């Protein structure tokens, strides 16, 4: 509410005794939050594991319809965005405002590229009638019914992941605005650090989604 100029640069909130205590608390809070995210995706991973174990053949056949090249390139895009993100955090550590902004913009662009490619892939699935539901079509023994399970999980998991990316993009934009306003310095860059953790976490989720959805049983029998 009322901003106090002298603590503005450190943004020390009244419940804390020191900036260090505040930073530690933020960091721990972020990690605990990431653990809740692990468990959130964990439920979907559990469903995936169960159904892959019940229908290995169907899941293999369904995953072969995904485009590995695009998937791999998109994975690379996301890894690059993590790289630029960590450089943004580093620039924050050193208090270099222009660098922060540059790397945040790069990260944001790479994130958008990832989402764009994802959208292209989803559209491809739509064209191929691989969206679960009444219009679903897939040739092959057992595929009409049970491949829908694979694609349900595919859309649920990549959709949840994309939703997290969108939230991340929102956070990056907010960071950009705050950086532009000159809120951050070498003494206080915690928000950049925290958003960085979040962004890398979303990256890690994709690091697992990629092989699970695209690669296993690629070769088939």
């Amino acid at each position: 509410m009322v901003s106090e100029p002298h603590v503005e640069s450190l943004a020390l909130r009244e419940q804390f005794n020191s900036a260090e205590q505040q930073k530690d608390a933020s960091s721990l809070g972020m990690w605990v939050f990431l653990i809740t995210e692990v468990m959130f995706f964990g439920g979907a991973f559990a469903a995936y594991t169960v159904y892959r174990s019940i229908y290995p053949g169907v899941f293999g056949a369904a995953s072969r319809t995904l485009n590995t090249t695009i998937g791999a390139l998109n994975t690379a895009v996301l890894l690059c965005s993590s790289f630029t993100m960590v450089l943004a955090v580093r620039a924050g550590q050193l208090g270099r405002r222009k660098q922060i902004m540059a790397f945040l913009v790069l990260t944001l662009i790479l994130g958008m590229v990832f989402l764009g490619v994802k959208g292209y892939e989803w559209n491809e699935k739509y064209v191929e009638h691989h969206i679960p539901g009444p219009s679903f079509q897939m040739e092959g023994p057992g595929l009409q019914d049970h491949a829908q399970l694979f694609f349900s999980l595919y859309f649920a998991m990549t959709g949840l992941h994309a939703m997290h990316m969108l939230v991340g993009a929102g956070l990056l934009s907010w960071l950009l605005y705050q950086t532009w306003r000159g809120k951050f310095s070498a003494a206080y860059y915690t928000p950049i650090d925290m958003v960085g953790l979040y962004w890398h976490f979303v990256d890690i989720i994709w690091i697992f989604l990629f092989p699970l959805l695209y690669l296993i049983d690629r070769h088939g029998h």
Partner: protein
Amino acid sequence: MSFRLFPVEASSISAEVDQLLFFLLAVAAFFTVVIFAAILFFAIRYRRRSDNELPRPIHGSIPLEIVWSVIPFGLSMVMFTWGASVFFRERRPPDNALPIYVVAKQWMWKLQHPEGQREINELHIPVGRPVKLTMTSEDVIHSFFVPAFRTKQDVVPGRYTTTWFTAIKPGKYHLFCAEYCGNNHSGMGGWIYVMEPQDYEAWLSGGTPGATLAENGQKLFENLACANCHKSDGTGRCPDLTGLFGKDVKLADGSTVKADEGYIRESILRPEAKIVAGYQPSMPTFQGLVTEEGVLQLIEYVKSLGPNPGAGQAEGLAAPGSR
């Protein structure tokens, strides 16, 4: 109005479950009495007499902690072992059990005897003979619960679950649906009639004679033209089914599977799931073409086909094409 505090024991497992219950009740009663008595005694004996009283602190006792951890743990392991052994017997039907097929739907129980009798919300069984239920649901999850038999098993759509019991006392017992299944859940009940063997025989022959389950299955088998591929001389595109039931089947991926009710059901509705070694996945699914009751009739028909006294070897029968 009748009123009781304890359910009748009407199956071979009832007394076992009740004995286990009495053991647990004894343990529970012992600890409840000890705790209540201790609290009551301490609360009176050490009641506060003046507002400034300061008792001497006692911080704890490791030996005591060990005692009251180890003793309950030991008792609980007895409970686990005893309970698991009862459960094991409850879940594993003997081979000679009389098969009954159950299809549940909102909100009724449809039961079929192999002899062809069909019942709704009623089941007649003979006393003293193990009965095995093979159950599935057409819609939501239900649960087959007979309190007098101390047995309960959820009935899950899309698969078979089984339960069994041997009734030991003639009479009429409640059948309940124990898993919430919608509007008329509490009305989805019925009765189990346990009869003396001769009464049961009379009941069996007294109803509409009709065809047996296997005969109905055979008709269905012919109507669906299954025999075009499943030829009994082993020359068809699909495996011969003679003597298949209960045998181990070699699959194309190298594993083996026991040809039980669940396997046959899966093979009819999801034929691509388990391909017999030496065959192509050429069979179409019959999902939507056969009702759950129809599948059960087909299973009973397949059961009636075997074991072929001449052939003997199961492998040779299940997958002749692989030779």
